[in-house]
């Protein structure tokens, strides 16, 4: 009976995870509890939650593992400052106070914080793993494979930005690394910054914008900014970047390459130029990742690939890896970003530090990523009563029938059921659902419910057994991390006039039987829904299919732009009242907007800082 608590964060996206004899019991991100997006503080609430979920206290926990090594990071910082001196002084001035006040004394800080939960906690229980070991462990150990190539790609950890390793049984060994400042994650972030989006949250937007553009700058990027070798290893030409010595990602030389200055989000419009830039960096990313995976498959002769790190959330690239066929099977950690490091460091401690064998298992061990808090009907009703909500309690069958009917009638439906997901995607636990057949649904959800940019696509949830009928995919994609095209038979032909449209005008042309989830290039970010991991959601979509013939619903996260995904019934009710959502299904309870007291409406449009 060994409990290991994994902690990640203190830089961004703090999270906690609890494993029991190698089994992942619970995991959650701090932002969900504090309602502060990307919350980087010590994940006190998340820790309390995972301990509560297991019904234990910190005194029952055998080890606490932290997901990276601060001294190694500091070494990288110092060596970078020495290498760039005196240019790096501005950056040095900003970084030093943080490091000298907090980060260097992390061990003591962690002990102090953990002693608030249990005063007798002492240093001997603390373990640390390297950042990319944490990512690699989160990718390999919970995967369905006994042998796999493990690829981690992100911005930067200590020194490594990309690692390639092999997992066999309970062994996981890193064989190759690419080091800072050469980083695919930072290259993508540089373009995120250049196109006027926020680093660490706008990368999805660049990926979503890419299909509107033409990758006309791909060759220029490969010629000037990044030197890619045949095996996918690469070097960034630092003359065009500013992140080693300055406080921005790119510099003037970078802007000169493309002939336009960096877009200021508050004053500059998104133009075709930015869409072409997005398409180009997406194409370069895919090129690099595909070269890496092809070379690794050829070198090691292993059929399975596991991935983690922020770049592994690039589901367009993941879809291409799968279709490329160099690896037969691909598994991506659903919390591929730093939050997933909490699971990774705990599993690394269990297998590598404590030497325990792998658990035998069918399928992966992430439990559908439903690792967060859940609420029973009594708790839900008690919270709703406190808030003055008007609701109807019913049987589960009635709730499913009513929710499916609301979706079929074009309503935007909040779906709050079971345990909250771990990772950035809502997977049918904390989702907003809609009818994918409706040509207006994408615009309605973007502008009236999510309050986000109209170019951003929505994702489909489809019954696993029906996925091949509707999409060019016949694999599991339970974590919405694979992009594939809509099936040919479901596409609608475009007129010559439609074909000639550019940029966001393309969005308004329905191009398939499910236009709300079909991007302008016919692609879709697919979640396959499985009866064994989320039976309730599976039943809902089955009922929707029975009513409409369509086994697909629109699934977007239950939040507005800039807000963390809802965690509690109270968060869900507030978001419901703050947006133009029509119906809220929460446990066996249904709330309809016209029944609610208008005085409870909140202005949500400006409540959260834009991401």
């Amino acid at each position, binding site marked *: 009976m060994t409990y290991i608590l994994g902690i990640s964060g203190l830089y961004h996206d703090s999270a906690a995870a609890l494993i029991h004899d190698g089994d992942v019991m619970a995991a959650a991100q701090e932002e969900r509890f504090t309602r502060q997006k990307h919350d980087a503080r010590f994940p006190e609430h998340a820790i309390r939650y995972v301990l509560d979920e297991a019904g234990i206290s910190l005194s029952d926990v055998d080890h606490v593992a932290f997901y990276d090594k601060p001294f190694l990071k500091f070494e990288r910082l110092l060596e970078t400052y020495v290498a760039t001196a005196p240019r790096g002084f501005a*950056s040095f001035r900003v970084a030093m106070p943080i490091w000298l006040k907090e980060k260097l004394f992390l061990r003591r800080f962690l002990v102090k914080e953990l002693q608030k939960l249990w005063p007798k906690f002492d240093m001997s229980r603390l373990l640390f793993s390297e950042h990319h070991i944490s990512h690699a462990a989160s990718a390999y150990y919970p995967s369905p494979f006994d042998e796999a190539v493990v690829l981690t790609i992100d911005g930067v950890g200590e020194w490594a930005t990309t690692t390639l390793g092999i997992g066999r049984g309970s062994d996981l060994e890193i064989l190759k690394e690419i080091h800072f400042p050469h980083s695919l994650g930072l290259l993508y972030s540089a373009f995120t910054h250049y196109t006027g989006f926020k680093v*660490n949250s706008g990368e999805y937007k660049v990926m979503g914008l890419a299909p509107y553009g033409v990758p006309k700058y791909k060759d220029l990027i490969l010629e000037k900014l990044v030197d890619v070798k045949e095996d996918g290893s690469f070097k960034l030409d630092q003359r065009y970047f500013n992140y080693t010595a300055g406080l921005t990602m790119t510099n003037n030389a970078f802007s000169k390459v493309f002939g336009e200055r960096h877009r200021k989000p508050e004053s500059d419009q998104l133009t075709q130029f930015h869409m072409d830039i997005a398409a180009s960096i997406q194409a370069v990313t895919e090129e690099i990742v595909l070269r890496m995976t092809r070379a690794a498959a050829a070198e090691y002769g292993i059929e399975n690939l596991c991935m983690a790190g922020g770049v592994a959330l690039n589901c367009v690239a993941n879809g291409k890896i799968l279709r490329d066929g160099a690896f037969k099977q691909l598994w991506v950690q659903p919390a591929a970003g730093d939050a997933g490091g909490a699971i990774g460091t705990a599993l690394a401690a269990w297998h590598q530090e404590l030497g325990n064998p792998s658990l035998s298992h069918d399928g992966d061990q992430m439990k559908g990523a439903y690792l967060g808090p859940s609420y029973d009907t009594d708790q839900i009703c008690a919270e709703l009563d406190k808030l003055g909500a008007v609701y109807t309690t019913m049987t589960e069958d009635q709730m499913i029938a009513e929710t499916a009917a609301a979706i079929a009638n074009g309503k935007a439906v909040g779906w709050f059921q079971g345990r909250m997901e771990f990772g950035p995607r809502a997977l049918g636990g904390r989702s907003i659902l809609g009818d994918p057949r409706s040509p207006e649904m994408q615009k309605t959800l973007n502008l009236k419910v999510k309050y986000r940019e109209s170019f951003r696509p929505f994702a489909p949830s489809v019954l696993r057994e029906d996925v091949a009928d509707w999409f060019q995919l016949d694999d599991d994609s339970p974590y919405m991390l694979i992009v594939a095209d809509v099936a040919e038979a479901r596409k609608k032909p475009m007129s010559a006039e439609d074909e000639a449209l550019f940029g966001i005008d393309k969005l308004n042309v329905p191009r398939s039987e499910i236009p709300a989830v079909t991007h302008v290039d016919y692609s879709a970010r697919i979640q396959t829904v499985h009866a064994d991991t989320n039976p309730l959601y599976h039943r809902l979509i089955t009922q929707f299919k029975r009513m409409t013939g369509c086994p697909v619903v629109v699934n977007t996260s239950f939040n507005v732009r800039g807000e963390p995904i809802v965690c509690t019934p109270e968060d869900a009710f507030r978001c419901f009242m703050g947006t133009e959502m029509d119906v809220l299904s929460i446990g066996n309870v249904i709330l309809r907007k016209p029944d609610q007291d208008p005085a409870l409406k909140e202005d949500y449009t400006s409540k959260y800082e834009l991401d």
Partner: protein
Amino acid sequence: MSFLGELWSFLRVRKKFWLAPVFLILVIFGGLIVLSQGSAIAPFLYPLF
């Protein structure tokens, strides 16, 4: 003191003794910066962390 011990073992394991004087000088500089300002709020930039 335990911090200095940790730092020493780190330099030993990493075989980076040349970092010790750099570390000392930067800490002095850094310390001056810390003393000359109150808050430690920085713009978000990956490589700083």
